[in-house]
């Protein structure tokens, strides 16, 4: 009796081992129809860059938003901003970085206007496309059941009459700097607030209609050195806001968008407070004519 139990246990373990060998090694679950949220981090970065590049052409914020949602980021704006910051830190301040910063900024804007358009963006759950022709109206529906790892996605195509096109909001685009219109300094203020970081150089850029503009490069130079930063990385302080920490005792020049006349003789001011003197901040506001 005891021997029989051991034999059965051995058989069970052998079977279990064979089953696992088959399911994990010989024929593991294969994912051939994966979703973007399972992509490796660097491929997600490339997807975000492509989404931003496409958005730079089309201005279709809803389509960009839908595409970003497929990547599964908890906060798309944060993910875009972080990627732009990483690119900037890596010395890549090119077009791609600016497109990503612009998209991050525009996503933070409230939607103003909505114009119905036909848009097709795949989603993890379902896609409905309505297209019209002169003779008939057709609707194609792609249905994905389940998520990766639990079931096999399937696609269904139906052809049923539908008179409604899926409306997609088309937002008013965030203003971008008009080429050939150099920014002019409209105000220079000393900020003596002990709550503001010492030596902070705050820059605000606006277009001719006083709307703040993100993604513009600010070049800061001093005797023997140069640095640069961009507007729009702190949307909570304004789309056209950017800042830089100045060293006490160094005189800087500030040039916006590599054109126009640099603002010179900028240095961290000395302020008087309740507890004596402290280093204040400078706020420069530029506007396009």
């Amino acid at each position, binding site marked *: 009796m005891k021997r029989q139990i051991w034999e059965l246990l051995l058989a069970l373990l052998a079977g279990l081992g064979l089953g696992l060998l088959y399911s994990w090694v010989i024929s593991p679950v294969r994912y051939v129809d994966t979703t973007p949220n399972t992509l490796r981090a660097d*491929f997600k970065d490339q997807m975000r860059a*492509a989404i931003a*590049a496409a958005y730079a052409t089309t201005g279709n914020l809803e389509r960009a938003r839908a595409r970003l949602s497929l990547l599964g980021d908890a906060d798309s704006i944060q993910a875009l901003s972080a990627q732009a910051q990483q690119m900037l830190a890596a010395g890549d301040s090119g077009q791609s970085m600016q497109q990503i910063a612009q998209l991050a900024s525009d996503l933070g804007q409230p939607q103003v206007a909505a114009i119905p358009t036909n848009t097709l963006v795949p989603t993890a759950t379902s896609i409905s496309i309505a297209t019209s022709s002169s003779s008939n109206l057709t609707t194609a529906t792609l249905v994905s059941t389940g998520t990766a790892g639990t079931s096999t996605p399937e696609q269904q195509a139906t052809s049923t009459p539908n008179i409604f096109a899926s409306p997609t909001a088309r937002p008013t685009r965030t203003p971008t700097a008009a080429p050939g219109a150099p920014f002019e300094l409209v105000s220079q203020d000393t900020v003596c607030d002990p709550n503001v970081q010492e030596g902070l150089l705050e820059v605000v850029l606006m277009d001719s209609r006083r709307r703040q503009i993100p993604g513009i490069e600010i070049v800061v130079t001093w005797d023997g050195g140069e640095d640069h930063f961009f507007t729009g990385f702190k949307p909570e302080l304004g789309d056209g806001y950017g800042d830089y920490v100045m060293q006490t005792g160094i005189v800087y020049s500030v040039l916006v968008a590599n054109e126009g006349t640099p603002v010179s003789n900028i240095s961290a001011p000395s302020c008087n407070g309740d507890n004596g003197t402290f280093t204040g901040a400078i706020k420069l506001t530029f506007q396009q004519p």
Partner: protein
Amino acid sequence: MQRWLRFLLVLLIGIAIGLVYGWVISPVQYIDTTPDTLRADYRADYVLMVAEAYQTEQNPDLAAHRLAILGSQSPGEITSQALGLAKQFGYADSDIFLMQKLTTAMQAWQPSTNGTSP
């Protein structure tokens, strides 16, 4: 004989449990996938993104560089397949037009020796 039958039965039960565990309860997890494994509609949409960007950038090297993540096929083949899918999925005419332009550009594109950066 009955003893062997019982052994075989328990062995099969073990195999079944192993398969259920390996395929259902704890399957192999793919969390760092590559774009070439994406579902067809996601691939088509990615090609559309590249086509939209190409519309203004007019940089075939950059477009080919972006398409390269979708696999080892030539950019012309990738865009051509995506174009077929886009028509099948009922993409808007304006999107089809952009993808056609990209497909034409990619079919004529030759890798440059200088390379490109995204």
